[in-house]
């Protein structure tokens, strides 16, 4: 039996941004018993000595008082450090490009935080993600957010039935413009607040500077695949496949791009041209596979996939392998596949799940310079 909204307690994860503010407002208007909770995952102070989390929490307080809901905070710094930040550093050490947002959703927001919400007697956890959950069928489905440009299912690909059953995404069926309008109409304090950009714990700071505070950088040579020296790199971890900016290679002709790395030799490979052939691959192997549905999957099936956030859908054939791995064959070659990033699978509007990109192939040959 589904409970009436007024008997349904929903904890909203509030970041102090406009999306979660509107998520809480909409639930309150729908008659739910809403509780706003701010997660503190990172201890940080900006140049002027202001703790960014304190500023955000003050916005949560203002918005919750405007909506008329109680607000609290919870501290997951320890869990975030152990589960997300450690992974983040380990991946960089391994020469890969991690996706901490995927890990944060998997381990913190929809695990530790979900458990916290349940310990408060909540029926659901809601967040301001642009995604939809369909609770109507036997199994819960996750659908893309209606605002194609904002769809965040890519970051939510590791969620499972047991988590999604308890999740609501109140703004998944409206677009960002409408979210801002709703916030403005209600006079919410966060209506015109700037969206946060980049990785949450780095914020607006210089990425290189941040990372160098945690990992020793080893400068080395920057060469073409044939070994022609083109310059020096500041440390392999600062570069990702397909990257153009920050290489500092002058001269004429087409711009230069990162096509690969050799961790052992500490060499960064660069080649010319956005569409350089070396940037293209035809299949990959991914691990850490997680499917949203519990129903058994066929050994091979066709679907579409995204290999980075906001990428267009690529037609692929997925083959299940042993040990939680999949082989993904692309119907057309795809540019700049990057190990460490997520491969996320879709059937139309439905997000099927995802995996972490491990190895990259072209026509059956492993591209060892990529991963």
């Amino acid at each position, binding site marked *: 039996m589904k409970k009436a909204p007024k008997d349904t307690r929903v904890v909203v994860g509030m970041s102090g941004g406009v999306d979660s503010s509107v998520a809480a407002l909409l639930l309150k208007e729908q008659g739910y018993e809403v509780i706003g909770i701010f997660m*503190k995952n990172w*201890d940080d102070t900006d140049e002027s000595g202001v703790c960014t*989390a304190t500023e*955000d929490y003050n916005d*949560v*307080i203002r918005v919750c008082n405007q909506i008329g809901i109680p*607000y609290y905070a919870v501290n997951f710094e320890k869990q975030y450090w152990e589960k997300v930040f450690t992974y983040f550093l380990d991946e960089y050490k391994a020469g890969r490009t991690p996706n901490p947002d995927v890990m944060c959703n998997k381990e913190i927001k929809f695990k530790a935080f979900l458990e916290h919400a349940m*310990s*408060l*007697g909540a029926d659901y956890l809601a967040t301001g993600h642009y995604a939809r959950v369909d609770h109507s069928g036997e199994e819960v489905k996750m659908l893309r957010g209606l605002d194609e440009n904002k769809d965040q299912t890519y970051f939510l690909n590791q969620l499972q039935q047991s988590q999604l059953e308890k999740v609501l995404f109140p703004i998944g069926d409206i677009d960002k413009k409408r979210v801002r309008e709703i916030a403005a109409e209600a006079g919410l304090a966060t209506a015109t607040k700037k969206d946060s950009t980049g990785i949450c714990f780095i914020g607006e700071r210089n990425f290189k500077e941040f990372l160098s505070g945690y990992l020793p950088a080893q400068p080395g040579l920057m060469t073409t695949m044939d070994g022609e020296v083109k310059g020096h790199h500041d440390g392999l971890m600062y570069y990702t496949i397909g990257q153009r900016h920050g290489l500092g290679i002058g001269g004429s002709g087409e711009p230069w791009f990162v096509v690969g790395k050799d961790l052992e030799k500490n060499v960064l490979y660069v080649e010319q041209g956005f569409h350089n052939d070396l940037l293209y691959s035809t299949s990959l192997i991914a691990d850490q596979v997680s499917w949203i549905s519990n129903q058994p999957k066929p050994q091979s099936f066709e679907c579409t996939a995204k290999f980075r956030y906001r990428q267009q859908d690529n037609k692929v054939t997925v083959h299940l392998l042993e040990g939680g791995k999949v082989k993904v064959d692309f119907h057309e070659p795809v540019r700049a596949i990057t190990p460490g990033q997520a491969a996320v699978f879709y059937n139309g509007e439905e997000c099927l799940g995802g995996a972490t990109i491990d190895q990259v192939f072209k026509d059956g040959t492993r591209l060892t310079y990529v991963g």
Partner: protein
Amino acid sequence: MERIYLDHAATTPMHPEVIETVMKQMSDTFGNPSSIHSFGRASRQIVDAARTSAAASIGADFNEIIFTSGGTEADNLAIVGTARAMKHRGRHVITSAVEHHAVLHTCEYLEKEGYDVTYLPVDEEGRIRLSDLASALREDTILVSIMYGNNEIGTIQPIAEIGELLKEHQAVFHTDAVQAYGMVSIDVKTEHIDLLSVSSHKINGPKGMGFLYAKEGLTLTPALLGGEQERKRRAGTENVPAIAGFGKAIELSMVSMEEKRERYLAFKEQLTRLLKEKQVEFSVNGSFERSLPHVINLSFPGTDVESLLVNLDLAGIAASSGSACTAGSIEPSHVLVAMFGKDSERLRNSIRFSFGITNTKEQIDEAGEALANIIARLTNK
């Protein structure tokens, strides 16, 4: 849902008679106490009456009371004011690791100003050892600041013994009595206290009001400069309505002290008995002996402070961790760290209940019942 307030160490509701006094003062007497006309004299009379009550409550003299904007200002004035006034006699200050932040952060400020500060450790009950104090004392020690009773765990420090120890030393003895005042009888003369901070809103008085007792003859460098109010130690027109209310709150709290002490001690025993009956696993942080009667700090293994407090609030029961918050999330208590070390489980599973004049036996029963249910749920029993 009837809400139950068990966070009186954070702040207390104003006593109805205090509200009446403040209202009356606001409507009848608006004069500036420094003015030479009848309006001013009427206000001065009110301020003087409150000053007399404040002095009498701790065995001090009329001239030894400085009204401030609260406990924090009193602590700041005592510590910074003494450090500056005595800097030619030395630059060493002694305090304890379990002080309120109004004292700790002020001492940290002094360190940045070039003073040397010793933070005395405490035992598992949160009490300093006199031998530690004796060996920390130096020739150039100018100030010792040790709180009377702890706001998080209630532990009372050996104030009279410290006063005795410092009697022959140049060091000025300050005690932050914000949490203890009104719960224990204090006599600054027999306990050899030189400076003592009190806050009004902890004793059912108005917020934004407090006093610093400063022994006659002591030099303090003032923080606020301007007029000659408070004998030049705290410039600014007096907050007369709040002073009037504070005076009333002092009178009320002095006559009811004995009765409150017994009542709150009974609440402590009632609450712990109830938890035992419900087979809730817990331990007391601090002890019941030599402790403030209205503060009890309990550790509940297998729970976490944030879930406990939010669940209690959702059930209408207001309690606290007693420690500071950053961005709303609870920081590990420096008091519990000093008592049990930084790795102790107690840092994550302890909460404070503190009693006040409106609490009843029925409320304690109800709160204990709700607490037991929440803990059973959180520990899956």
